[in-house]
Structures are given as structure tokens and as C-alpha cells.
């Protein structure tokens, strides 16, 4: 098997940090064949790039606006061939401790050339970090949910989600514009984003900000129940008997 050069994508919101990393990667290129396939100033840009070029390694900063490096690592897992992720961080003792506990690779900025080379040499033997392990890291709360559509990773901003509804294997994500299908656990999502979503039913979480009100409905069988009225979408959602208390709770808040 011929040794193809290692394809590296550099992600950092600070231009000087990206330039520095590129310089160091150039230095390493003599010892280990590699090619920098691109650089991105943020998570979204990185994902867009990864739709056109493929990378074996993603070197990403942790603290970035809009999307943290940890979140980016979760979204790249949805790619058909996810790259290995190594984090770079200037100073974050809590994250670093958590990385060590979860055996996640990281480099401290300023990065030392030898340390970078050692990390690069390990890459072919590394596997992408599983989502379950990324979940354990602090500050991993996502701002986007990612779904795969026609082999592209589509990001859905969490604050645009009207409701999440579990149906058979999938969860339907409803935004004002459209629906997406997601393969995750509703309970985990509820925990991760608390208190953004309210559980109105065993299979349904509703965005607190999208609740317009409640309406009493009488079914065919003559038993009455509450329906949630939503902002931006026409449909309504039933509130289960068990979750009825939220009608009073939210009604009180909105007064």
C-alpha cells in the first residue's frame, strides 16, 4: 500500500493561529508526507469544505464563536468518511483534564513542532472519537443538530427548532421551514438542551419559545385534552395526560 500523504484541515477562528499551524505543518512535511487541504475560520466553514475535499485529520481549536471545536467533532461524525480530530487549545484546564480522562487527543497552543509531529504520526492508527465520548466533555452542548441528507451534513440551529417528535426509529425535527430526520435519543436531547425544550408528550419535545398557547379539545370519544398551539407552524400537538401540569406551569410564566 502506497503511502498517500496525510490530508490535514486546519480550523481556528484566529488567523495568526492558523498561519502558525500551517508553518509548523510545513516543517513536519519533511519527516512525514502531508498536505494541508484547507483552512477554516469556523465549524460551518469547515463542514462546507469537507463536502468538497476529504481530510484524514482535522486540527481544530476548541474555543470558537458560533460552534466550538467539540461540537464540530460531533458533526463530522456524520460524514461518510469522518476524519480523525485533534484539538488545539491555549488554556483550558477543565477541558484538558476531561480530554485526558476520555483519551481524546489535544495539543496545547503554542504548539511545539515535535509534539505536532508525534501526533501526526499516530493519526493513521487513530479512529474518529465516538459521540458518546465527546458527550462527556465539558461545554459540549451543541448549537446545531446535524442530519445527513443526500450524503451532505446539514446543520439545523437548535434555536430554530419548533419541536422534536420521536417516530419509530427516527426523530422528526420541525423548523418553521421544513422537517428533518435525526437518529438520536429524545431523552438525551432533552437532557442536553434543558431547559430549552418542554416535554408535552412521551414522544415529543417542544421549544419553549415557540409555544403560543394551549387549547382544550374534545376528541371523538368525548374525552378532553390540551393541544399546544405553536408559533410559525400551523399544526398543533397533543399534551399527554401525564404532562398536563405544564399547561398550568407555562400559562403562569407567560402572565
Amino acid at each position, binding site marked *: 500500500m502506497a503511502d498517500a500523504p496525510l490530508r490535514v484541515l486546519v480550523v481556528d477562528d484566529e488567523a495568526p493561529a492558523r498561519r*502558525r499551524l500551517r508553518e509548523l505543518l510545513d516543517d513536519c512535511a519533511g519527516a512525514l508526507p502531508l498536505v494541508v487541504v484547507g483552512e477554516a475560520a469556523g465549524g460551518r466553514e469547515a463542514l462546507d469544505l469537507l463536502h468538497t475535499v476529504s481530510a484524514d485529520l482535522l486540527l481544530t481549536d476548541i474555543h470558537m464563536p458560533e460552534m466550538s471545536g467539540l461540537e464540530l467533532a460531533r458533526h463530522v461524525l456524520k460524514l461518510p468518511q469522518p476524519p480523525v480530530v485533534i484539538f488545539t487549545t*491555549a488554556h*483550558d484546564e477543565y477541558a484538558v483534564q476531561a480530554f485526558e480522562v476520555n483519551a481524546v487527543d489535544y495539543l496545547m497552543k503554542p504548539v511545539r513542532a515535535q509534539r505536532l509531529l508525534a501526533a501526526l504520526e499516530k493519526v493513521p492508527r487513530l479512529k474518529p472519537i465516538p459521540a458518546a465520548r465527546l458527550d462527556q466533555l465539558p461545554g459540549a452542548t451543541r448549537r446545531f443538530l446535524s442530519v445527513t441528507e443526500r450524503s451532505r451534513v446539514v446543520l439545523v440551529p437548535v434555536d430554530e427548532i419548533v419541536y422534536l417528535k420521536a417516530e419509530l426509529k427516527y426523530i422528526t425535527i420541525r423548523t418553521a421551514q421544513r422537517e428533518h430526520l435525526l437518529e438520536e435519543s429524545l431523552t438525551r436531547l432533552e437532557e442536553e438542551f434543558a431547559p430549552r425544550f418542554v416535554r408535552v408528550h412521551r414522544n415529543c419535545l417542544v421549544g419553549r419559545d415557540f409555544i403560543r398557547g394551549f387549547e382544550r379539545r374534545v376528541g371523538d370519544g368525548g374525552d378532553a385534552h390540551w393541544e399546544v398551539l405553536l408559533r410559525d407552524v400551523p399544526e398543533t400537538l397533543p399534551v399527554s395526560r401525564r404532562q398536563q401540569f405544564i399547561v398550568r406551569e407555562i400559562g403562569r410564566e407567560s402572565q
Partner: protein
Amino acid sequence: MLAVNALTAVAALVREPQFDLWAGQWLEMSALVEPYLIIEIAVLYVLAPWIARQAQPAGVLAVAAITLAIGLAVHALIGRLFPEPPLALLRHLLLALCVCVVLIGYFGLRARALSPAIAESRLQALQARIRPHFLFNSINAVLSLIRSDPKQAETALVDMADLFRVLMRDNRELVPLADEIELCRQYLALEKLRLTDRLNVEWHLNSMPADALVPPLVLQPLLENAVYHGIEPSAAPGVVSINIFYKGGEVHAILRNPYQAEGGRHHAGNKMALANIRERLQLHFDAEASLESRVRDAIYEVHIRMPYRPVKPAPAREAADDRAKPARDAGPALARGSTGAPHG
């Protein structure tokens, strides 16, 4: 300490009417006490510089003597208007003396309780400043310049050296505002290096009294917060504005930055820095200074108010203060050449 004593006597007398009000039946007496208080405040205010120069016991005695003398004078004056039994004079004077001594004692204790705090403030100031995050990111930014732009790397390192020199020195003494501004410029130049066009700085210093004495590092930590909480969490460019002006014997500093509600950053660090600066302002200026913060229209704003104390013309200052400019004869020295245009 002596200055505190002089001030205490003044403050003490301001408190006295309340003392009388508590005592209910002496309500009428306050009508007699007020003119007495006003005269005493005026006399002590005039004599305060002289009293402050006296040794501790002499100062206390002087304040007590002034209190008694004014008491006597006021009593004589009032005695002319309303005939009063002579017993009241003795009671009157004793009461005044007691209150005077108790309050001087109280303020003496308070000053003693606070002076270790002044020594401590230097340490606190050190702890609350400069996030390691900033240090390492800046070093990284300088490293990135060494190959491509060695000149700029040099400037950045010199800025960093200046910044850390100030951070590590003894920061108990007040410094000229111009020095603090210079420090802020160096700090922001370093941040600009790594944040490039995301960070825009607007200076409004046209009516800044450059010679005002301020606690060291009164602004820089606030700018650090402004960058950390207001600029870094957003990918879009943002503006940090610094507006310093002189108004009615006071120096006002207003710092603004975009407010990022969901920055995901723990705001505890910001609160700590604010508390630390507020405490140091109080140690130096007592109730004459204040620090307030608020959010309005998605802009976070910190407003500092300090009394205007110009740099003394006497050159008997330490070598570290060689940049201190002598005060002009009248009014605050205004900074020249500063503009409101975004600073590159």
C-alpha cells in the same frame, strides 16, 4: 491615616443629626445642632490640610478643641436668641465631645482595618487580571508573526513586556490616567493582532484629563472583559468603545462592548473583575468613586466615576513615575490629538 482622621471628623458630624433623631425626644435639639454642625464642617474642611499634617494625638486634640470651641460659640450665639438654663451648655458640650471622640475612634479603627486591605489590594489586583487564555493566545499570535513579519513581532513582544511590567509592579499608588490609557492601547494592540478585523476600537478622549490620578489597572481589566465577553464569542466584527471625560470635578470613564447573551462563557470572571475594581476604587476614593454596569440595547456598558485628583507638580516621585506630567495651573490637562475614529 491622619487624613482619614480629618475626614472622619467631617463625616462624623454629618452623621450626628441622625444620632439625635434616634433619640426621639431630642428632636428639638437638632434645630440647635444643625447650625453648629454646618459651622464645624466648614471649619474642619478649611483646616483639614493643616490637621492632616499634625501627628496623630495632636490631630485628634485639635479636632476635639475645634468641636468644643464651636460648641461654645454656637451656644453663646443661641443663648442670645433663646434664654437657656446654664446646665444645657455643659450637657451640650459633653455630648458633642463624646460623639466626636467615639466617631474618631470608630474611623481610626476602620482605617486600621482597611490598611492591610490596601496592601492586599495589590495581590488581589494581580489575581484578577490577565487570563492565562490571553497570555498563551498572544504568545501564539506573536509566534505566527516571527517568520512572516519580524518587525511586527518585535513590536508585539515589546508591548507584551510593557504590559507585564505593569502587571507585576507594586500597584498600590495612583498613576496618571495617561499611563493607564497607554497600557490599554498596548493591550488592545495585542488583541487586535490575533482577532484582526473582528476587533474595532473607538477612542473618545478629547476631553480626558490626562493628568488625573487613577488606581492602576482600573481600565485594562475591563477592556479585557470587553474583548473576552463581547468580541471573542462572535464571528462578526464588534466595537469596543472607550469614552473618558472630565465633568464637574469628576473623571468619568464609560466603556462599551456588544453584549453576547449566549456567549456560553461563564460571567463569573467578569463579576469578579468588577468587584475587584470597585473595591480598589473604594480604597482609594471611598464614596467619591463608583462603578456601575448595565446592559442596554444589546450593549454592555461600564461607567466609572472618580474624583479628579491631578498629578502633583512636586517632582519628588519614584523613578517608575517618570512619565507623570506636572499638572497645569488650572483645570484638567486635556489629552490632545485623540480622535473618535476607529483605531487600527
